[in-house]
Structures are given as structure tokens and as C-alpha cells.
């Protein structure tokens, strides 16, 4: 019975017979590419929401509605939503693969992560694009200043 052992320092090679897209490689590339874009998007988000003017004190429906009324901030927020959730979900998947030792628990954790990511991406995208900055019947002092007087 001859047993062969791999050399301990042999470079990584994909198992032979594995065909198709190398998803782990694309996940690895995605983390780096999305990470660079997210630095710009999130630092901008934090600067505009927390540093300018009265910072966190100024955040209210009127402030958010004023921002989300412009397509620029709509696309900024949607890009942040998709990139950050997939980046975070993939990071959590890596951590589950590292620490969850049993097949069933791994599956449950990764299923929960996937469900959270999909639900929040759909919810967030719908909110950004179906949002009305001047909802009818709301008190005018809660709305952004550009809303027509009722």
C-alpha cells in the first residue's frame, strides 16, 4: 500500500478535474476591487453626514430626503449598498468557513448570511428608488424645504 504525501511547501494548485469558473479567485479579486471603491464611497458618506455642518445632529427625515431626491446620492447610496453588503457577506462566509467545523452548522450560517444579504439589497434598492421625499399629508416642518406647500 503505497501512500504519497504532497510536499509541505508545494504551491497551491487547483485540484485536477475541477472545471469552470474559479469562484474563490473572483471572490478574492472582488474583495480588493470593491474595497477600494468602498473606501471612497464610505469616507464620502461619513464626511457629508457626520463632518459637514452640524454633523449627526442635523440628520433627520428632511436631511435624508433632501439627499435622496437627487439621482447623484441615489446612485451613491445604491452602489454603497450593493458593494458593502456583498463585501461583508463574503467576509462573513470566509469566517464561517474558518470556524464552523460541521457541515450542517456551516450550511445554516452561510444560508442565514445569504438570506440577510439578499433581503437587505432588495429592500434597500426598493427604498432608494421608490422613495417620495414629499409624502402627502406629512407636516411641512418635517419635510425638505423644496416640497410644495399643501
Amino acid at each position, binding site marked *: 500500500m503505497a501512500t504519497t504525501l504532497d510536499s509541505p511547501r508545494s504551491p497551491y494548485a487547483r485540484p485536477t478535474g475541477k472545471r469552470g469558473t474559479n469562484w474563490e479567485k473572483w471572490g478574492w479579486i472582488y474583495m480588493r476591487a470593491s474595497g477600494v471603491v468602498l473606501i471612497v464611497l464610505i469616507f464620502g458618506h461619513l464626511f457629508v453626514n457626520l*463632518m459637514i455642518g*452640524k454633523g449627526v445632529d442635523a440628520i*433627520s427625515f428632511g436631511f*435624508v430626503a433632501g439627499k435622496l431626491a437627487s439621482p447623484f446620492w441615489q446612485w451613491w447610496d445604491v452602489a454603497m449598498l450593493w458593494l458593502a453588503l456583498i463585501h*461583508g457577506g463574503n467576509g462573513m462566509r470566509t469566517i464561517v468557513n474558518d470556524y464552523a467545523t460541521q457541515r450542517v452548522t456551516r450550511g445554516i450560517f452561510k444560508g442565514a448570511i445569504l438570506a440577510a444579504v439578499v433581503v437587505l439589497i432588495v429592500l434597500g434598492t426598493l427604498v432608494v428608488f421608490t422613495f417620495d421625499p414629499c409624502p402627502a399629508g406629512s407636516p411641512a416642518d*418635517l419635510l425638505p424645504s423644496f416640497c410644495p406647500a399643501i
Partner: protein
Amino acid sequence: MPQQSARTLTSQQKTTSRRPAGTLYRGREGMWSWVLHRITGVAIFFFLLVHILDTALVRVSPEAYNAVISSYQTPIMGLGETALVAAIVFHAFNGIRIILIDFWSAKYQKVMFYVVIGLWVVTMLGFAPRHLMNVFSH
């Protein structure tokens, strides 16, 4: 002579045990940056889940959104926001360090860790006083 070679051997063993070879992630700067990257990453992920849900309240009503946001504008949450930004800034700068290790060179990974810490301190000195002034000056 045998004494000297024995001494050389112990010092070699010491060096070996202090600096594990063949990996960036076992021991010292490489390991601690990895640990911090994971912890900050998990923390940011869970914040993100909550943050999307609270922002989604703009679709419900102005009153609902303002009620939840005003609970964020308290001193305790203000300190939490400072910790959150601290985690994000570390994760961002260490992420650039990881990209540089992968695409440029692992030779300077330790120096780059201290550059990350330095840039983090500078960024937080810019952010924290400004934010805490907003939080504590009602």
C-alpha cells in the same frame, strides 16, 4: 569551540521561535493586523444590517424615521458612532495594506502596519473631536 556553536544554536532557535517563517499571519504585526481586520469587519457587518433597516424607515413615514434617528443622537450612541468610525477607518487603511502586500510586496508589511496605525490616529484626531462636539453640544 563547542560552547560557542552551542550558543549560536540557542540564539538561532530563539530567533526562529520569535519570528516564524513562511507566513505573514503567525505572530506579531502580521497576526494582530489580521485579528483586528476580522473583528472590525464583523462589527461593521452587523452595524450595516441595522443601518439599512433604520434608513429604510424613510419609506414608512417622516415621523418613524425621526423617532429612530433621534435615539441615535444621544451621548452613548455618539460614543458608539466614534467606535464605529474607528473600526471603519482601521479596516479601510489595513485593507489598502493587504492590497499592497498582495500586488506589490510583502517586504514592508510590518512598516505598513505602523503606517496604518499612524494614519488611523491622524484620521481619528480629525474626526473624533468634531463628532463629539456635535454630540455633546445640544
